[in-house]
């Protein structure tokens, strides 16, 4: 059975993982390569890197960081920030990214979605929908440039267009809830997930296990992305997976050798690969 995914997200600024509130007030949260390895061993189903210094010129250091990260982990890696052309897409994929995420460049140049999907496949084009609620209505407006620029574009309409143009997944972030840890914007998630047939990744607002549950049920999301809840040590992934699994959400059990190791090292020493027989005992909620 296809499981729902838990995806830690790293906002990377000048080579450090940071986390803000409503896209500002950034706090340092650690070294990206170390964090990626640790989360991957801790049961993360995928990882997302968003380079929020992307408008700067130093792309080489970003490529290097992505390559070093991709070399450490054996789960899918999505990279966003500053990707403007199919050449940029190709560079990121060559560095070891599996998918790229575009927001500003896709809004400014929607053809990029189709070109990227055509050349590299829809599966690697994730369109990030950063949106803010309009007044008290159930309508949301797209923002670009890291949340600084309102566009007047309706989020649900744009989500539909992005999929029609070839997006393979949508990463839907509520700017209202981002970083507040008060729960995802469920009406926005539901409005978008009802309109598209591609997977929707919920983002912005995770603070408690029930927030993830709500996004995956009421919000109709296929995956939940979170940052603060992980970086500041509130919950680890295996705890969240157990919580969700007990409530009937299909989850991938952690790897047998690294399940409890979400702190240090990458546990990939060759001597640990001899005995995998314990994995049959892992099916806590998978075979109901």
């Amino acid at each position, binding site marked *: *059975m*296809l*499981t*729902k*995914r838990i995806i830690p997200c790293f906002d990377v600024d000048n080579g450090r993982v940071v986390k803000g509130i409503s896209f500002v007030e950034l706090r340092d949260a650690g070294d990206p390569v170390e964090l990626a390895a640790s989360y*991957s061993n801790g049961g993360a*189903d995928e990882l997302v890197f968003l380079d929020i210094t992307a408008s700067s010129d130093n792309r080489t250091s970003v490529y290097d960081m992505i*390559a070093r990260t*991709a*070399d450490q982990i*054996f*789960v*899918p890696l999505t990279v966003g920030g500053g990707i403007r052309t199919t050449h940029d897409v190709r560079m990121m*994929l*060559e*560095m*070891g990214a*599996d998918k790229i995420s575009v927001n500003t460049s896709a809004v400014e140049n929607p053809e990029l979605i189709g070109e990227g999907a*055509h*050349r*590299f*496949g*829809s*599966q*690697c084009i994730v369109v990030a929908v950063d949106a803010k609620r309009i007044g008290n209505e159930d309508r949301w407006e797209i923002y670009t440039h890291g949340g600084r620029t309102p566009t007047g574009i309706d989020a649900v309409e744009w989500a539909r267009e992005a999929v029609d143009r070839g997006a*393979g*997944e949508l990463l839907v972030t509520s700017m209202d809830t981002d970083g507040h840890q008060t729960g995802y914007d469920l009406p926005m998630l539901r409005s978008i997930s009802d309109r598209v*047939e*591609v*997977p929707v990744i919920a983002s912005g607002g995770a603070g408690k296990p029930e927030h993830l549950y709500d996004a995956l049920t009421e919000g109709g999301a*296929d*995956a939940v992305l979170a940052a603060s809840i992980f970086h500041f040590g509130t919950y680890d992934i295996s705890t969240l997976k157990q919580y969700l699994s007990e409530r009937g959400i299909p989850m*991938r*059990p952690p*790897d*047998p*050798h*690294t399940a409890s190791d979400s702190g240090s090292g990458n546990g*990939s020493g*060759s*001597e640990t*690969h*001899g005995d*995998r*027989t314990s*994995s*049959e005992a892992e*099916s806590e909620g*998978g*075979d109901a």
Partner: protein
Amino acid sequence: MSDVVIVDYGAGNLRSVARAVAHAGVEAIVSSEARAVAQAKALIVPGVGAAADTMANLRSGGLDGPIRDYIASGKPFLGVCMGLQALFDVSEEGGTHECLGVLPGRIVRFPLGLTVPHIGWNTVELVREHPVFDGIPSGSYFYFVHSYHPAPTDESAVIGETEYGVRFPAVMGEGNLIATQFHPEKSSEAGLRFYANFLRLACERGSIAPPETAATGASGA
């Protein structure tokens, strides 16, 4: 020169595959040369992307014939994702595209009404034993990302199946050939084990030199 060759045809997650192979203690080369394909002692065709582009790239690179010849030679072959789909007769992705014709059958889209692409971790149920799954229990999770799936006319080469709206072959195996719809290089421990097994089998057949570490669990050396 390394004996393990990863085919570069212009779109693919080559680095991830090379890293997974390296994790098993084997160094691979990434090549787009027909000659390297012919001389390989273990060949891996990875892939992400669209079928039409994949086939166009393989043909324009002069790689389609050499890959077919390589598989016919009986040496160990691994196809991943698009590298599996390209083995069939025809893909229906974006029209009707002739593929390599090594495995009989078509590549078809998931039925309407499902969330597509099929993205994420899903279980693979083994319907036949195969040494490439040594130490990997049936029902293990692997990472998938695809909108089309194999519909073989000959079920005898199906090794493992996955359920997503339909039950489809996730692993095909026949003689020297093994191919997966999932991405073992993105499937954490089970996937690394899978690569290690493939390389160990290649080694046991005398095709490639033994891995440099004990990471594969292989006893030979």
